[in-house]
């Protein structure tokens, strides 16, 4: 039936040649599963699906922060959706702890987003496991590192391993258009890190009026609207700061305002405004820095809030 499927009629006979069992229409299906994925399925404690990604972290690397990236285009097309989603389920059952599987099962978002959520978990666990191995010599399977949302929806790492380390690392993750990114590092008490990733082309001209103040649009006009994708980088910068503070930008893009763009370094300086400033009076007036980067058609930003 071609290279992928074999249809057989099988006769099982005893040593005397008598027919004992006949199977008619038995199907074998061949899956082309990438080696990396296969290794991960067989030895999750030792293997990682994601790859380190230096671009987003910029200055945060000095503080020991690392970013990891996992993209759908690294897998054969439709691997996770074909055949009743068997490989997605295999990945979920392997990588997720019990409570995480409950969340995954309960997700009612469209299938592609559900898969992206799963990839986000996988890359976050890879990043955490790499950190814990490097810093504390712990070798953990993905399911040992549980990531559960706190009251504000921020992903928090947990598990039995937290008893073996002086302080749990801080984490942020983001996914868009089949790319998932996680950033992990050591943070003081009360610190937070944020990452946001987007695909180029998401920020249309008209969107800028809703997303940015006129002062911000002036900053953008000064750097120009070329392949460096500054409007989208500015958006991601705001989102990264919001996530570092433990909130999202759901309350609106005007809550965090850019004061300065450094196109050469890719950094943005921002401060809180309006509702966000009221909500977090302790950090109102502070300047936040976001590191932004663009790699092909993906834009990403990270930010660290070091704590009080």
């Amino acid at each position, binding site marked *: 039936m071609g290279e992928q499927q074999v249809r057989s009629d099988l006769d099982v006979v005893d040593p005397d040649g008598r027919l004992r069992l006949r199977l008619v229409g038995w199907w074998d299906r061949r899956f082309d599963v990438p080696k990396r994925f296969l290794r991960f399925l067989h030895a999750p404690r030792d293997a990682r699906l994601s790859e380190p990604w230096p671009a987003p972290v910029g200055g945060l690397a000095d503080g020991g922060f690392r970013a990891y990236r996992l993209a759908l285009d690294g897998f054969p097309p439709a691997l996770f959706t074909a055949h009743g989603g068997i490989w997605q389920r295999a990945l979920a059952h392997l990588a997720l702890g019990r409570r995480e599987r409950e969340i995954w099962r309960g*997700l*009612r*978002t*469209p*299938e*592609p*987003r*559900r898969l992206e*959520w799963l990839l986000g978990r996988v890359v976050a666990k890879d990043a955490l496991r790499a950190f814990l191995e490097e810093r504390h010599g712990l070798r953990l399977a993905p399911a040992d590192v549980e990531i559960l949302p706190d*009251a*504000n*929806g921020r992903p928090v790492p947990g598990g039995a391993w937290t008893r073996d380390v002086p302080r749990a690392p801080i984490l942020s993750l983001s996914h*868009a258009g089949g790319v998932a990114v996680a950033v992990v590092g050591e943070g003081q008490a009360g610190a937070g890190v944020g990452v946001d990733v*987007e695909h180029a082309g*998401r*920020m*249309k001209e*008209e*969107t800028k*009026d*809703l*997303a940015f103040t006129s002062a911000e649009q002036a900053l953008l006009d000064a750097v120009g609207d070329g392949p460096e994708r500054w409007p989208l980088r500015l*958006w991601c910068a705001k*989102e990264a700061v919001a996530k570092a503070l433990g*909130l*999202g*930008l*759901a*309350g*609106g*893009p*005007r*809550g965090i305002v850019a004061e300065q763009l450094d196109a050469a370094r890719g950094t943005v300086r921002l401060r809180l405004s*309006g*509702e*966000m400033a009221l*909500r977090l009076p302790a950090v109102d007036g502070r300047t936040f820095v976001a590191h932004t980067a663009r790699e092909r058609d993906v834009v990403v930003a990270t930010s660290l809030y070091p704590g009080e």
Partner: protein
Amino acid sequence: MKASRDQIMADVLGLLGKLADDWEYTGEITPQTRFFADMGLGSLDVVVLGTAVQEHYQQVFPFVELFAQVGQRAMPDIPVGEWVDFIYRHLDGPSADTAPEGSAR
């Protein structure tokens, strides 16, 4: 005459469908269905949707105010019904259920 809430709901769902190729929410969409938790939209999606709504109705809406209100909640999210209601309240033109002044009936 301006659009009814039902019409606006239909318009919004149409715009959402155009925005993201992979957007097909499998559940039934009610006014309680939430953009983030249920539909899996991101905050940029909602801003882009706001722009699409403005283009569709050829009118500027004060979405920034809605976003600010939403931001005050513990777990910020926007039910579709709230979004539709906001559009309805700010949409220009006499509505179907308020008769113009001076009408006999």
